[in-house]
């Protein structure tokens, strides 16, 4: 992440926090193979303001958003393993060829 990405996300995090909105933060904590975003990439899921940042740009992001909803409900952080290796030959935009480990927590 660049300093600017960092700044944008931090501002969104702090704003959501100050407004008292429940948000979930997803962070890529590990990757194997080729993934669209690398370790440290973060996405803030704010149910009323939308998404800030990305952990995959379509690649497996839906799974992470599902997890964010669960985490917001239970309050318990989750570790999601997103596998992007299947169906290598389908040319689907979600095929990137790697596996990523995403940590999802309430902010």
């Amino acid at each position, binding site marked *: 992440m660049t*300093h600017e990405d*960092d700044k944008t*996300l*931090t501002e969104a995090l702090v704003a*959501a926090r100050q407004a008292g909105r429940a948000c979930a933060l997803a*962070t890529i904590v590990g990757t194997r193979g080729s993934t669209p975003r690398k370790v440290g990439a973060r996405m803030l899921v704010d149910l009323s303001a939308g998404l800030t940042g990305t952990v995959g740009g379509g690649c497996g992001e839906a799974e992470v958003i599902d997890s964010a909803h669960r985490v917001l409900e239970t309050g318990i*952080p989750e570790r999601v393993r997103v596998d992007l290796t299947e169906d290598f030959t389908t040319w689907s935009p979600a095929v990137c060829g790697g596996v990523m480990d995403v940590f999802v927590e309430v*902010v």
Partner: protein
Amino acid sequence: MSTTPLELGAAEASRLLLQTSAEGGSAAVGTVVGASDGAPQHRGARMALVRHPEHGASTHGSLGDPSADAAAVERLAAALDDRRARDGIRALHVGDRQIEFYVEVRRPIRELVVVGAGHVAQPMAHMGAMLGYRVTVLDDRPDFATRERFPEADRLVRADFSDPFADVSLNERSFLLLVTRGHKYDYECLVRALRAHPLPAYIGMIGSRRRVRATYVQLLDEGIDRALLARIHAPVGLDIGAETPEEIAVSVAAELVMLDRGGTGVPLREVERVADRFFKDQDNI
């Protein structure tokens, strides 16, 4: 070392990292993201170690028990001490438990100092900001180093090229690009930069082979140590055939990334040779 054992949330941790790096310090934050026993009770607990140029060292947050905190601080310090440490999961041994500890490090923010506010400086300032540098643009002409021309620059400085860095402190986090309107000015700034203590991390100067050679002759005449010539990146940038100011900025930006990440500058196709390595005996790939 000061300690703040209160719970450290994601937002506070994120702000701590950002602020420390902007103020010239280093910080590491560790988050518990898993444990060998699978117990979720401390998942999400955080601890930070900050080294600030003015406020010294401090720790923030807690993992819930003193022995875990001690192990965490040790891990965070090791990450800060290792220049090549990458963000990622480290194992933390606490008693017979093994905790998965995700560590993120931020170093002091780097500064790109663009000397000369002309055609190359504009796309360069833009790309520098994109890459996370704090950008300073310097010129002796007030009409050139303007906010309209450099919306992303952090600082616009009017300076005389005979003493260009009077208001800009150069240090080991400075990346200097000399692109003034005249080679004479580039040279004057170059001499100043080479005599700076500490030396900037990067000194790039635009110019043809002939120009660069003439510059080196002049530098040696002036008594600049020959070993210092190796610190100059001139002609600046990677060989991508850049012609326009924008292309030149791409070439310089690529060089900065390459040096930062330890890349080779060779096309990845030639590094990986996927077709040759995996499909050698096939007619169709």
